[in-house]
């Protein structure tokens, strides 16, 4: 079946602009995660959805970043007033709900954001 997909694959924008990054999780997966990977670093957690609600948004760096998942499937990560430091690969992952404990996260290919 289809894996996690993310669009666009690349996004170049200018400092101060607004961007939206989209994630389509694996069908039926109730949990969805956003991570950010800067150059030379591992992925860094941003926000986690269980269904439509954000279960944990402690990783969002500031109030320029927010994410939605209105119907419990597709999610959009929104960044306002972009800064050069926001340049990174933004990864999305999804997992099935299951027994308590860790459920394997399946990652998308990422969106490479470049802020000029």
């Amino acid at each position, binding site marked *: 079946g289809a*894996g996690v997909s993310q669009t666009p694959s690349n996004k170049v924008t200018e400092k101060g602009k607004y961007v939206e990054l989209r994630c389509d999780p694996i069908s039926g997966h109730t949990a969805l995660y956003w*991570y950010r990977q800067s150059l*030379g670093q*591992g992925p*860094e*957690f941003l926000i986690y959805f269980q269904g439509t609600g954000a279960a944990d948004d402690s*990783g969002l760096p500031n109030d320029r970043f927010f994410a939605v998942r209105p119907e419990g499937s597709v999610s959009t990560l929104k960044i306002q007033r972009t800064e050069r430091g926001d340049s990174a690969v933004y990864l999305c992952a999804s997992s099935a709900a299951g027994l308590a*404990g*860790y459920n394997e996260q399946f990652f998308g290919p990422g969106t490479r954001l470049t802020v000029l």
Partner: protein
Amino acid sequence: AQRVTQPEKLLSVFKGAPVELKCNYSYSGSPELFWYVQYSRQRLQLLLRHISRESIKGFTADLNKGETSFHLKKPFAQEEDSAMYYCALSGPGSGYSTLTFGKGTMLLVSP
């Protein structure tokens, strides 16, 4: 605070040589530990998790709680093992949901 440390950015070995990718962690509690792998032009994928105690593609990793380590080992490296490897943990504080990653180690296996 939870932290994962991978001290080597790059590990270069010859085919057939043993491999050990180091991972140390800091967490107060009982985390789950994982190794993720990213092959060239592919997406990040789970390689193995400590709780399953499996050998995947010849790789094993043992959780050493005393040394807070979870090193990844393979006795005989193959060229197709060349990839970026990330150690990660998930803890009860997040309901074992979110992952904390190390910075990764690039493994390069030469013929």
